[in-house]
C-alpha cells in the first residue's frame, strides 16, 4: 500500500477581499496559478474562516488508444486523420447481425500496460455493455469491462521537482485502480449554422485502455507529472502512441476538496483537457474554484465541467441527458477473456489462440525509470539529466550514439545535448530523429573540441552552420571559417608581433603606464 495523498495542503494566498463572488474567471485563474501545490506539503496557514486549510484530492481517468493495426472487435484499420467514414466495418456501423471478435493485439497491449503498472492481471475478465444514445455510438451501447477488468491494483511512480528546481526531485506513487479494455466512440461534428450533426465512424470501435488512477494526487502539477510518466511508459511499451494532441491519450480529472480529517468532498469531473500543461492548469483552477465556492458558503455540485483552454477556467458542461443510468449488462456475444501463465497454459493449446502473461512479462522493455537509472549509472550523468533525455522522443538514443562516437566524456556530452542541441530542436519543433545535425556530425564536432582544435565558442558557431544542413563536415566549416585554435607557438608569436607592430603608439602608452 502506498501513501494515499501527497500530504500537501492547499492555501489561500490572496489577501482578504481580493476575490469573492463575482470575481472574473481570469483573476481566479491567476490566483490558481499562484497557489500551485507545494510538493513538499508545507504546512499552510488556515483560510479566512480560521479553520484548518483545505485538502485537495485529485483522481484521474485516462483513456489511451491502443496502438494496433485494427480495431478492438473488428478488422477495420486504425489510422488518424483518414477520410471520414473510410475505416468502418459492418460491425463498426452496428449493422444488425454482426458480432464482436476480440483483437488479440489489444489484449496483449493491455496486459503489457498492466504489467508495467505493477497490476495484477485477471486471468479471467469480462465484457459488459454500457448503454446510452448518442449519434457517434452506433450500437447504442459501448462494450467495456465494468465488472471484471483485465488488470487491477497497480501503482505508478513518478517524479516531481520541488519549487521548479530540477535538482530537487521527489518520487511519488499513485495507485492504479484498474485498466479496462473498451471501445472508442465515433466523432460528432456539430454544424450549428445548418443545425446538422455530421458523424465520422472511423474512430468507432478503436481499442481503448481506460486507466483509472486512485485519488492520490493533490494538485495539477502532480497530476501532470503522473500523466507524463504514464505517457512515457505507454510509448516505451508501444501499447499506445499516447499523443494527446491526436486524442490518443485523453485525461479526465476528478477533483474535490475537504478539511483535513473530514470525508472527501463532493467531486467534479473535468473533461476536455488537451495537453499535459492544460491538465495542470485545469486541476489547479478547479481546486481553487471549489475552495472559493465553499469558503463563500456555497456547495459543490457533482457535475461534469469542461476546461476552456482560452479562458483558462472550467465551465459546467451541458449534461447530455441529465443523470444517466447506463443499464450495464453482460456482453452476451463474447465469452470470458481467459489469459494464461506458464503454469496454467494447457499443453495442447495452439499458441496463436492464447495470451501468455509470463511470455509478455519476459519481453517487457526497460521502463523509463529503469532506463534513467541505467543512464545515470553508465554515463555518470545527473539524475535530472536522465529525465531530460527521456522526456524528448529519441534524445536518449541520440545521446548514446554521440557518446559512442566521441572521445568526449559523457558528462560533457550531456551539456551539449541538453543545452545546445535541444534548444535548437525546440526552436524548430523537431524531434531528435529529425535533427539536421546527425549524432555522427555532432560527435565529429565534439571530437574537434575535445582535441582542442577549436574553442567552445567556435564549436557553437560550427554547430550553427551544421544546423543549416548543407552537407559540410565540421572540419570543412572550421577550415572555411578559419576557426581553428592555433597550436604552433611560432605562428602565435608571429601573429602577436604583427598586432603589436601595427599599434606602436598604443604599445608605448601601455609600456609607459
Amino acid at each position, binding site marked *: 500500500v502506498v501513501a494515499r495523498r501527497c500530504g500537501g495542503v492547499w492555501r489561500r494566498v490572496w489577501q482578504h477581499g481580493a476575490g469573492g463572488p463575482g470575481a472574473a474567471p481570469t483573476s481566479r485563474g491567476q490566483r490558481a496559478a499562484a497557489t500551485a501545490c507545494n510538493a513538499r506539503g508545507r504546512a499552510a496557514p488556515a483560510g479566512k474562516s480560521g479553520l484548518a486549510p483545505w485538502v485537495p484530492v485529485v483522481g484521474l481517468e485516462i483513456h489511451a488508444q491502443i496502438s494496433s493495426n485494427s480495431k478492438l472487435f473488428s478488422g477495420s484499420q486504425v489510422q488518424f486523420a483518414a477520410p471520414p467514414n473510410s475505416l468502418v466495418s459492418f460491425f463498426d456501423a452496428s449493422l*444488425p447481425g454482426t458480432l464482436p471478435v476480440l483483437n488479440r493485439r489489444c489484449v496483449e497491449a493491455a496486459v503489457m500496460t498492466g504489467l508495467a503498472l505493477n497490476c495484477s492481471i485477471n486471468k479471467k475478465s469480462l465484457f459488459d455493455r454500457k448503454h446510452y444514445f448518442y*449519434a457517434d455510438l452506433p450500437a*447504442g451501447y459501448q462494450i467495456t469491462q465494468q465488472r471484471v477488468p483485465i488488470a487491477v491494483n497497480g501503482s505508478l511512480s513518478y517524479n516531481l521537482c520541488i519549487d521548479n528546481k530540477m535538482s530537487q526531485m521527489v518520487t511519488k506513487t499513485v495507485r492504479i485502480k484498474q485498466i479496462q479494455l473498451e471501445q472508442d466512440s465515433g466523432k460528432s461534428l456539430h454544424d450549428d449554422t445548418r443545425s446538422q450533426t455530421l458523424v465520422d465512424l472511423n474512430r468507432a470501435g478503436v481499442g481503448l485502455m481506460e486507466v483509472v488512477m486512485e485519488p492520490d494526487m493533490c494538485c495539477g502539477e502532480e497530476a501532470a507529472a503522473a500523466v507524463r510518466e504514464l505517457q512515457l511508459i505507454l510509448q516505451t511499451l508501444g501499447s499506445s502512441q499516447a499523443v494527446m494532441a491526436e486524442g490518443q491519450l485523453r485525461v479526465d480529472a476528478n477533483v474535490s476538496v475537504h478539511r483535513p480529517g473530514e470525508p472527501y468532498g463532493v467531486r467534479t469531473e473535468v473533461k476536455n483537457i488537451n495537453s499535459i500543461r492544460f491538465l495542470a492548469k485545469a486541476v489547479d483552477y478547479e481546486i481553487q474554484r471549489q475552495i472559493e465556492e465553499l469558503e463563500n458558503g456555497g456547495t459543490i455540485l457533482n457535475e461534469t465541467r469542461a476546461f476552456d483552454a482560452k479562458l483558462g477556467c472550467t465551465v459546467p458542461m451541458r449534461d447530455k441527458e441529465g443523470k444517466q443510468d447506463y*443499464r450495464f449488462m453482460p456482453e452476451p456475444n463474447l465469452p470470458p477473456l481467459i489469459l494464461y501463465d506458464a503454469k496454467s497454459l494447457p499443453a495442447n493449446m495452439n499458441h496463436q489462440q492464447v495470451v501468455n502473461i509470463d511470455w509478455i512479462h519476459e519481453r517487457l522493455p526497460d521502463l523509463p525509470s529503469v532506463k534513467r537509472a541505467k543512464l545515470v549509472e553508465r554515463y555518470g550523468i545527473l539524475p535530472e539529466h536522465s529525465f531530460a533525455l527521456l522526456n524528448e522522443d529519441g534524445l536518449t538514443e541520440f545521446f548514446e550514439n554521440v557518446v559512442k562516437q566521441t572521445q568526449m566524456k559523457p558528462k560533457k556530452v550531456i551539456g551539449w545535448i541538453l543545452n545546445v542541441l535541444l534548444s535548437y530542436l525546440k526552436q524548430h519543433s523537431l524531434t531528435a530523429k529529425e535533427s539536421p545535425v546527425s549524432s555522427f556530425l555532432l560527435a565529429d564536432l565534439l571530437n574537434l573540441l575535445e582535441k582542442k582544435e577549436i574553442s567552445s565558442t567556435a564549436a557553437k558557431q560550427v554547430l550553427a552552420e551544421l544546423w543549416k544542413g548543407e552537407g559540410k563536415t565540421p572540419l570543412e566549416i572550421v577550415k572555411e571559417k578559419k576557426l581553428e585554435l592555433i597550436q604552433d607557438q611560432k605562428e602565435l608569436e608571429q601573429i602577436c608581433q604583427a598586432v603589436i607592430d601595427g599599434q606602436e603608439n598604443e604599445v608605448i602608452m601601455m609600456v609607459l603606464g
Partner: protein
Amino acid sequence: RDWRFQVSAALKEGHVTPTELCQRCLALIKSTKFLNAYITVAEETALKQAEESEKRYKRGQPLGVLDGIPVAVKDNFNTAGIETTCASNMLKGYISPYNATVVQKLLDQGAVLLGKTNLDEFAMGSGSTDGVFGPVRNPWSYSRQYKEKSVPKLRSVDEESNWVITGGSSGGSAAAVSSFTCFAALGSDTGGSTRNPAAHCGVVGLKPTYGLISRHGLIPLVNSMDVPGILTRCVDDAAVVLGLLAGHDPKDSTTIQDNFKPFELPNLPDVSKLSIGIPKEYHAPGLSSEILALWSKAADFFKNAGAKVIEVSLPHTRYSIVCYHVLCTAEVASNMARFDGLEYGHRSDMNKSTESMYAATRREGFNDVVRGRILSGNYFLLKQNYENYFIKAQKVRRLIANDFLKVFGSGVDILLTPTTLSDAVPYTEFIKEDNRTRSTQDDIFTQAANMAGLPAINVPTALSERGLPVGLQFIGRSFQEKQLLTVAKWFENQVKFPMIQLEEVKRHNLDVFQHEKSASFS
C-alpha cells in the same frame, strides 16, 4: 439405401433438373401465396443459382447433397442483395451487404435460395401473427385432413375464419417446408421459435446446441439463447443440414472451437440400450388430453423397444417462463438500441432534434410488442432493479440448467416431452390473447432447453382429432446431436406421421416431392 434428401438422388440421376425443381417450387409458392409464408421471393437469383447448379450436375460435379435443392430462410437472417426485414417497418427495404454465415454455407453447398420467410416482428412472438406483413396461415388449414375432420363441425363454414396459425416465430419457414414449397428452411430458436411452428405444421424442427451453429448474421433476439434452427420434412434431412452448418465460425466467438464432424444416422437405429426421461413437471396445466395420451403412447413405444423409461424431475423448469421474460426483454432492450434511424433502416421525418428523431423513428419502426419488451427490459436493467431482476433471473437460469445436468448425470440419455400444449388454434381464437400471454403459454415446454443451451427436436407424431399435426419433443445432452437425432429418427419411423394432402401440391403434380416424403416412411 440412402434416405437423405431423396430429391438429391433424383437430381443426380437426372430425373429432374435443378431448374425444373426451382421452377416447380416457385410455381407452388405462387399458388400458395395465401399462406403468406414468404415475405420476399427471390425468383431471379434463385433461377440463376439453379442454372449454376445444373451446370455442375452436367459436369458431374455437384457440390454435395444440397446442390440444386431449393431452400428458404427466415427473414431475420442477413442475405446479401435480398431484402432482410425482420417483418418490421424498421427494416422494410433494408438490403444487407453480407450473408449470414449459415446462409453463406448453404449457398456454398449449391443450395438454391428461394426467398425469405415470414415471422413475428423481430421474432418476438409464438404465432407468426405479429409481423408487419400479416399472419402466416398454417398449410394444414387447407388440407383434406383438416377439412374432413374439423370444418363440418365448425360453426362457420367460411374458410376465412377457420384457418389455424402456424405457431412461431419461424411460422413462415415451417409453412414453407410443410407446403412443399422448399425442402429445408432455416428458422431461429430462442424460446421454441423453431420447434413450436414445426409441431403445428407437422415438420421436423431442430434446435441445435447453443454454440454449435454460427449466429453471425442472425439478427438477434436474445444473444445468449438464440440458435439457428433447421426445419425439414424428415429427421435424416435435418441431420444433413446440421452437418453442413455446424462448426466453429471465426465471426462468432460463442461457437465451439473444435471441428464438428458431420454424421450419418444409422438406418436401423437401436434404442434398446437407452434411458428415456419423462419430466414430471411437464404435465402442465392446459396440456390437452390428446397430447398427454400421445406422450404416454410414445413412452410405451420406447418401453416396448427395450428402452428404460423413467420419470425424472426438473423442479426449476416452472420458473423458466418468468425468468425468460426478464432475460429476454433485457437483451432485447440492448439489442434494439442500434435501431436509431442513423445508419440504416427506417428514419422518421421528424427533425427537431436528434433525440426527437430517435424517438419518432423507434415509435414508427417498432410494433407494440417490440416497444413493450424494450420498455420492460430497460426497466430490469436500471441500476436500482438490476440485482432484483436481472441477476436473480441469471441465477434461476443456472438452476434450470443444473436440473438438466443432474438428470443427464443420473444416466438419462434423452428427455421426451410434448412440444406444445395443444394443436394449432384458429387465428380468430389466437388473437384474443395478447402476445405476452400467448408466448408464456406456447413456449412452456420449449424454453428450458434454450435456457440450458441444450439440443432439442420436434418430431411430428400424429394428427389430432381436428386433423391437425401434433409433435413431441426430444431434448438431448449438449453437443450430443447424433444421439438425439438417432432417437428422433427411430421415433419418426414408429409413428409414421401422415403426409399433408393439399390441393395445390396435387395440382402441380409434384411427384418428386411425394417420392421424397415417402422415403422416410418406407
